[in-house]
């Protein structure tokens, strides 16, 4: 019987796969989705979420968010929390692109003011922000300085004049995970990463110019509290991560975990990409410290790109970035593992929460939210396809069951190869131009892979997250310009 047929609806936009589905499951699987999204999900999602449910120390449920699709080991959109006493840490539950994440930046400009120079703006951003395969970044630093950056994250950027005070405050973890220890990072990872700070990358990474149209604002009061306070305001959305550095950290530790997980710790897993080690083992702690280095590298990467964005706007509009209102709204990661305290079955527990293609969405009043957002909740930035649009959401109190976690994007419905055969990059570029979206891309085939038709409906994903109580809509943002790697 198809696995999809075994899930039972247990709430609004919530489905459950019983632990009897497969031997060894420690907890049930719960999937947040509309009936349509559930139907469209790859069967592999259910199997992968069930495999995650077998990992030692998992508590509550093995979750999948509405944008879930089959990944490597964990599904993309997978959320799993492990008791820190006897649970595990798994690089596959975080992803290769550690701290792949989103940053949203406001401007005080309206579409009327930007439209006449949109092409010039996008061209300048395309020229000044390195993108594509490989690529050197905006910083020329030594390997030792890079190690300092790995431990300091955005604090390093602030110290060297690349960040405003408020940038740090408006970033998850303040832009620096303090457990980062550069001595746990291989020379290879350093060699691979020290030239890449301030690069966009390729694939689904992008920098987008967007507009908040009045008709797309779902909650005006919250939008105003987050800095969206005028009709047709122009914003910038950035999606990138820790580049080759994070991938090297993940690769190094996957290899290390594979060699010890059975022989040292007797961990039986169902997919080598779920390679894991006890959280408090030497290997687990080393990976956690190295992972935090990659988290900090990604925060710094996005910060350096913001620094360059501010330079470009100042040059084009002849005003200081402060005058142009280039305030960061928020920066949030969607590939991490973090130690947090949550209630599980009535008991508060210290948990290691893995979020892979899933976004933390803290509710109003919770700690680690900027004071100016305390009453509205943590901003959540959900990137859609380059053709369709994106969302700014906030966390909600009803998100407690998923450790306050929601979706991260649209989720693919079509493989990259199929997308390339279905679409042509130049056609996509022309079609988008005719719809008022100006795109510059390093790779035309890469552009075809990112066609809107290759992704799920972002609206349905966000609706499912809201129906499931995971997050609340604030504004839908429409693209007008896009820089792609």
């Amino acid at each position, binding site marked *: 019987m198809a696995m999809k047929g075994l899930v039972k609806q247990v709430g609004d936009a919530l489905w459950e796969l019983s632990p009897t589905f497969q031997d060894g499951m420690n907890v049930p699987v719960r999937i947040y989705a509309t009936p349509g999204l559930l139907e469209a999900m790859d069967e592999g999602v259910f*199997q992968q979420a069930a495999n995650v449910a077998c990992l030692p120390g998992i508590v509550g449920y093995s979750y999948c968010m509405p944008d879930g699709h089959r990944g490597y080991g964990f599904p993309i959109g997978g959320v799993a929390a492990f008791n820190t006493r006897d649970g595990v840490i798994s690089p596959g539950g975080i992803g290769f692109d550690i701290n792949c994440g989103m940053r949203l930046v406001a401007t005080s400009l309206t579409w009327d003011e930007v439209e006449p120079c949109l092409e010039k703006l996008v061209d300048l951003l395309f020229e000044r922000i390195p993108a*594509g*395969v490989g*690529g050197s970044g905006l910083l020329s630093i030594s390997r030792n300085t890079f190690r300092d950056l790995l431990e300091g994250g955005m604090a390093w950027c602030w110290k060297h004049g690349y960040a405003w005070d408020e940038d740090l405050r408006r970033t998850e973890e303040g832009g620096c995970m303090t457990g980062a220890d550069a001595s746990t990072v291989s020379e290879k990872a350093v060699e691979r990463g020290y030239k*890449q700070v301030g690069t966009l990358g390729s*694939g689904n990474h992008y920098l987008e110019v967007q507009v908040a149209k009045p008709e797309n604002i779902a909650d005006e009061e919250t939008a105003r509290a987050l800095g969206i306070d005028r009709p047709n305001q122009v914003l910038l959305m950035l999606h990138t991560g820790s580049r080759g550095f994070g991938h090297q950290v993940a*690769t190094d530790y996957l290899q290390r975990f594979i060699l010890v997980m059975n022989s040292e710790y007797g961990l039986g897993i*169902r997919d080598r990409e779920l390679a894991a080690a006890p959280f408090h083992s030497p290997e687990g702690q080393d990976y956690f410290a190295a992972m935090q280095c990659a988290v900090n590298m990604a925060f710094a990467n996005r910060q350096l790109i913001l620094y360059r964005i501010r330079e470009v706007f100042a040059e084009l509009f002849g005003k200081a970035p402060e005058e142009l209102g280039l305030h960061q709204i928020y920066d949030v990661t969607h590939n991490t593992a973090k130690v947090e305290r949550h209630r599980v079955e009535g008991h508060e527990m210290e948990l290691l929460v893995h979020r892979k293609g899933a976004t933390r969405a803290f509710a109003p009043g919770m700690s680690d939210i900027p004071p100016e957002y305390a009453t509205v909740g943590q901003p959540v930035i959900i990137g859609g396809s380059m053709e369709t649009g994106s969302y700014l959401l906030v966390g909600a109190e009803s998100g407690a069951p998923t450790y306050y976690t929601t979706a991260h994007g649209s989720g693919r419905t079509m493989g990259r190869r199929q997308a390339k055969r279905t679409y042509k990059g130049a056609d996509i570029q022309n079609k988008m131009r005719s719809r008022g979206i100006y795109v510059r891309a390093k790779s035309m085939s890469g552009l075809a892979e990112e066609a809107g038709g290759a992704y799920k409906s972002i609206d349905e994903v966000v609706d499912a997250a809201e129906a499931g109580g995971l997050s609340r809509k604030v504004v839908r943002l429409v693209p007008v310009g896009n820089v792609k790697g």
Partner: protein
Amino acid sequence: MPHRILGDETTYDAAFEAWAGDLTALFRECWDVTLSFLVENPEEIRSDAREVVTLESDSVELLLFEFLGELLYRKDAEERVYRLGQLELDGGSAPAPDSTPVTDGVGPGQDGRVDAEESSAGVGEPGVRAGRGASYRLEAEIVGETLDPERHCYGVDVKAVTLYAFTVELRDDGWFARVVLDT
């Protein structure tokens, strides 16, 4: 050398299967396919730089994993893209007498699906090991040049080899590999 790109039936970033009569040819094929994701015109890569990569492992799977990973690492660290020159691989023309079979339970993929997670058995350390005390040793000459967006038609930036469904195995008709790449 045959290979098949997987993609229509999955949402993976980049994945392929490859077949060859011996391990040396299999490793070569696997890099050639990986390179074709990175650069759409690999035949344009010049031979400006020449290096030798030497790797050893007691697992042929980990050796291929490390080999592909090494060349991807050099793409970022050296900002160079490489083709393969001479390639020598010792210790793996056939499984050693006490070899351990691949434990993934991954089927032959007749329908092209990558279905490691459908295995009902637990999986562990990589399979197809060299005999006790023995190892696989690879020495590869790599030739290439600095990445140049003006001449190299970029595809997608492959950044890692995943262990998901990763397979190297000797079948009746020769060596087989399945590789899923992260981009």
